[in-house]
């Protein structure tokens, strides 16, 4: 069924062409600046409501050889969750509509821009937005005294790495989802459990022994832990493990996403 097509039909992705898509998204997005600005507030409300609101009933949480205030524990988790949300919005919801409803991609691949360019472009776009949000949130953390180490300077590249890995994963979802009702299922069965159970709101040590490996297999766990290691200064061998996991996920998921997208659009 899937015969390897000649190279001329599927040229390697080019940054120049991928940037065309980024430019398209930017132009389309200019009309939605409210969505852009308000996106920044959602994690902030969680930080205030849960981090400080519920946090005042909570003793400090031990993390590495430190004891963290609850808000300091939660904030990097929320940053990771916001990265996941952004990756889903830009890597799954928007492309889903462009692919299935607006048929934007059908129009685009009639131009010299190829399918791999689209995939690269969407991930790049997601990265740009995620980086801006991540930067804003880190500044807020700094102002609120939730940053405890200079390692936090590396938190922004860490946000980009997480964003890349998660967006690539989201693009896989895009290429296999055809129905609108599946969107709701993905939210409830994949995103919501990730959000709640990946060590975002409470430490993995609270889980029974047999559940911990399950949690530790999820990408959001690694993303949250990486950011937490950096903002609290508890950097060590596990930190490198989180980076390796996210890096590997990015490469593998991006490869699969491009292949699936190709099959989906040319059939």
């Amino acid at each position, binding site marked *: 069924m899937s015969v390897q097509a000649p190279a001329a039909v599927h040229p390697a992705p080019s940054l120049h062409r991928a940037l065309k898509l980024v430019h398209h998204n930017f132009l389309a997005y200019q*009309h*939605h600046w*409210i*969505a852009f600005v*308000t*996106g920044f*507030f*959602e994690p902030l*409300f*969680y930080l*205030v*409501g*849960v981090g400080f*609101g*519920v946090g*005042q*009933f*909570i*003793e400090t*949480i031990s993390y590495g050889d430190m004891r963290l205030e*609850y808000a300091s524990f939660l904030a990097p988790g929320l940053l990771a969750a916001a990265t996941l949300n952004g990756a889903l919005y830009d890597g799954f919801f928007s492309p889903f509509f462009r692919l299935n409803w607006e048929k934007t991609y059908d129009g685009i691949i009639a131009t010299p821009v190829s399918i791999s360019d689209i995939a690269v472009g969407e991930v790049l776009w997601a990265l740009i937005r995620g980086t801006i949000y991540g930067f804003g949130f880190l500044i807020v953390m700094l102002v609120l005294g939730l940053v405890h180490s200079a390692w936090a300077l590396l938190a922004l590249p860490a946000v980009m790495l997480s964003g890349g890995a998660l967006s690539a994963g989201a693009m896989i979802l895009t290429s296999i989802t055809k129905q609108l*009702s599946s969107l*709701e*299922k993905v939210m*409830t*069965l994949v995103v*919501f*459990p990730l959000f*709640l*159970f990946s060590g975002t*709101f*409470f430490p993995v040590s*609270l889980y029974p022994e047999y559940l911990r490996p399950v949690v530790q297999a999820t990408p959001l766990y690694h993303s949250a832990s990486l950011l937490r290691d950096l903002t609290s200064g508890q950097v060590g061998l596990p930190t490198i493990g989180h980076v390796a996991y996210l890096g590997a996920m990015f490469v593998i998921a991006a490869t699969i996403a491009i292949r699936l997208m190709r099959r989906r659009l040319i059939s």
Partner: protein
Amino acid sequence: MSSPTNIVTRNLLVFWRGWRSSFFLSVLGPVMFLSAMGLGLGSLVQEGRTFDGADYLQFFATGILAASAMQSGVFSATYPIMGRIVWQKTYEALLATPLSVRDIFIGEMMSIAVSLSLLVVPFFGVMAAFGIFDSPRAVLAVPIVILMGLACAAPVFAYTATLESDEAYTWLWRLVVTPLFLLSGTFFPIEELPAWGRAFAHATPLFHGVELVRQVTLYDVEASAVWHIAYLVALLAVGVVIGIRKLDARLLP
């Protein structure tokens, strides 16, 4: 069969196909939320800290029951309604039948009540299974949160009737619904808020819903319950009156 119920039947028929998976998801959602926040986060709460005698799981679960009804009520009055006004033009077709604008509005509100109960009843069941209630009086929480969900939906419905596109929903959701969700006494008592925050909470329908739910499920029913109910009924009434007027202006200009 009176006219607005025709709308309910129509919506239920549309809804029917996805029903089984929706029901499954509406049970799974609360189970996950209660496990993560009530049990997980709750276990971090200081030993001996109670919320007027309730533990954190009880406190949180009752708040989140009301908060979910608010989210569901608001959501039902946004995209689905806009779809029928702007995108699918369902109402234009319905107005060609003997149905009036008022029938359509009331029928939609009744549909929202049905979908709220499909959310609230399973949620309530999950809470009972978590051992949150110790009195049968807790059942009263179900009609209370349905009333509150409708009171949240009606003004949003009125707002939807004035909109041309769904863009406003982004800020409605992020700047109104999310802060209400987190700061109306759902996650922590509003006594912990600064004075202006408490004043703000008292103005929100969710706060009144949460208070009522906690009174019937965890605490004693107090005289303030009358005020909370009056607030919700008044909000619903105002929302319906303005909503019918706005929808009328929109559909029959």
